[in-house]
């Protein structure tokens, strides 16, 4: 019978790759809190390191400067000792002067042994002390020598030890002086480097976090807009990691599910209400053939003997025809009320529209409006769900009926669209039209200008959903005071019309 078309994919949805198609709960988790915590830890570690380092380097500098002071005193003493040694050799002055200075130098070393050792290490300290004591020994020997010749014999080793003692100390003092200068320079620069690093880090974190936050917030704003327009498909943000926004997305999806559910419940009740108004019409429509049948059958039994065969046959035919008429009414009602999935079939659009006008014939009659239907011949077939399409046109016609005064006009036109491959259905009325400022809102679910019991504001939103799903669109043109045209465009199929069963 009907051709079923399955597996229609929405071209707007990218079924492809990356990270959208990884379920939210399976993404690795890095929360925004974690990101902020990491940044703060980085700040902290950095400042802590720099502070500790500064403390360390300042202590070290302190020691070095102390050392340099001691070393300076020591140097003065040993240089004095050597001066007096030379004076002694030249002029035979008192050698005790030299020894006295040496003794002071020795005292300096011994008193500050700890501090010096800290800088030089014990080995060098010992060498230093030993050079000095060797020199001291030579000086004692010199003083003890009996004659000039003996003294002359000691002089070379005395000089050697003396200069060794001085140059060893000088070398170290020089080295320490250079290192102190270097350390000062470093201590001056490191805070600067630190400041720049913090600054860069701050800017980076700020830019990164705000960018991420703002982008995500924007996305969520779009989601809410989408939901507002009645799109209840779950959201899948394109983020590689789970964070607070993932939780928000999950909360959103939960809400969407609930909304979708409630929406469906409401749709159901809307449908029931639509059926309610239809039922009044249908009752009338059904009671007419029933009445005809009952009257005819009653008369048939009442007058059976008196009736001619021809009259009997006519009456029996009437009974059959009227019963069939009742059957059709019931079928139409069932068709409209039937719940179900979208059942795609190849359809004759002109027939769908005509059936829809038949469904509302009583409302149209009751409102005393004039409905005309014009269909172009040889229309291509369309693919769609018969009941849902009828629902759309019934909605459009009833909307027009609702706003039209008696003797108002509804004109329905079915023709090929100027865009090849599409059919165009226009439902036009000469009612009050739609104010410009609400034209953008009438497709929103629950938007209605009708009294509470009369309108649910779901008709157009449901209709748009149905048409969109079939790849078509529905839009309107309205001039306040003149009337409204609803324009529905549906894609035609290229399938030949022979496929149709009827």
């Amino acid at each position: 019978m009907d051709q079923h078309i399955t597996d229609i994919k929405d071209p707007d949805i990218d079924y492809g790759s990356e990270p959208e198609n990884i379920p939210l709960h399976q993404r690795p988790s890095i929360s925004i809190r974690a990101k902020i915590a990491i940044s703060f830890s980085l700040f902290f570690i950095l400042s802590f390191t720099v502070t500790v380092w500064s403390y360390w380097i300042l202590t070290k500098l302190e020691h070095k400067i102390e050392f340099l002071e001691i070393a300076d005193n020591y140097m003065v003493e040993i240089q004095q000792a050597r001066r007096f040694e030379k004076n002694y050799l030249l002029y035979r002055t008192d050698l005790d002067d030299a020894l006295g200075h040496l003794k002071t130098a020795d005292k300096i070393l011994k008193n500050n042994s700890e501090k010096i050792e800290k800088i030089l290490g014990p080995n060098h300290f010992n060498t230093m002390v030993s050079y000095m004591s060797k020199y001291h020994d030579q000086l004692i020997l010199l003083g003890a020598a009996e004659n000039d010749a003996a003294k002359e014999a000691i002089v070379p080793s005395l000089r050697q030890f003396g200069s060794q003692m001085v140059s060893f100390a000088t070398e170290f003092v020089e080295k320490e002086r250079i290192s102190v200068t270097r350390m000062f320079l470093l201590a001056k620069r490191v805070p600067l480097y630190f400041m720049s690093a913090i600054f860069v880090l701050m800017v980076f974190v700020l830019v990164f976090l705000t960018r991420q936050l703002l982008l995500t917030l924007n996305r969520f704003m779009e989601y809410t807009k989408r939901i507002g327009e009645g799109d209840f498909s779950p959201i899948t943000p394109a983020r590689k990691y789970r964070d607070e926004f993932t939780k928000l997305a999950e909360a959103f999806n939960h809400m969407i599910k609930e909304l979708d559910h409630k929406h469906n419940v409401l749709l159901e009740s809307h449908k029931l209400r639509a059926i309610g108004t239809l039922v009044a019409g249908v009752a009338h429509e059904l009671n007419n053939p029933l009445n005809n049948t009952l009257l005819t059958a009653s008369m048939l039994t009442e007058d059976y003997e008196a009736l001619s065969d021809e009259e009997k046959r006519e009456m029996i035919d009437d009974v059959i025809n009227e019963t069939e008429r009742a059957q059709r009414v019931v079928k139409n009602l069932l068709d409209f009320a039937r719940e179900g999935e979208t059942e795609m079939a190849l359809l004759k659009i002109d027939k769908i529209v005509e059936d829809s006008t038949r469904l509302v014939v009583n409302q149209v009659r009751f409102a005393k409006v004039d409905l005309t239907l014009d269909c172009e011949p040889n229309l291509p077939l369309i693919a769609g769900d018969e009941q849902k399409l009828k629902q759309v046109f019934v909605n459009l016609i009833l909307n027009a009926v609702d706003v039209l005064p008696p003797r108002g006009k509804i004109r329905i036109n079915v023709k090929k669209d100027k865009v090849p491959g599409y059919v165009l259905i226009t439902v036009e009325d000469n009612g009050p039209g739609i104010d410009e400022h609400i034209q953008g809102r009438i497709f929103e679910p629950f938007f209605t200008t009708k009294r509470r019991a009369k309108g649910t504001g779901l008709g157009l939103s449901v209709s748009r959903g149905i048409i969109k799903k079939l790849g078509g669109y529905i839009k309107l043109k309205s001039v306040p005071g003149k009337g409204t045209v609803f324009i529905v465009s549906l894609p035609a199929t290229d399938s030949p019309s022979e496929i149709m069963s009827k």
Partner: protein
Amino acid sequence: MNEQPLKIMVIDDENIVGKRLKPALEKTGDIVEAFEEGETALARFAQEPFDIVVTDIRMEKIDGIEILERILAKSQRTKVIIITGYATVEIAREALSKGAFDFIAKPFKPSDLRQIIERASKELRS
């Protein structure tokens, strides 16, 4: 009985209704004319008044309530019986408040209508 035959008018846009009711109501010796349109029925009524008018309430151009009003405006004593497609209290109340003799809901048997007409004719002759 030697009573004067009553003149009865039946208006319903379902032609089978007139077709069946005409012989059914004529059995009592009354005169029945059936119409499918309110306009022609009213035009006929203008020529000469009928005793009883049976009219459907929901019809294409002129509805039953309007027919009721226009007939009673012309002939106070005429009994108007309204046929409703489906019985609702409001329609019944409206019809009765506007002076209808009674109403009958579809679907009905000829005998149901005959009973109402009998009551109407009793009132007419009393």
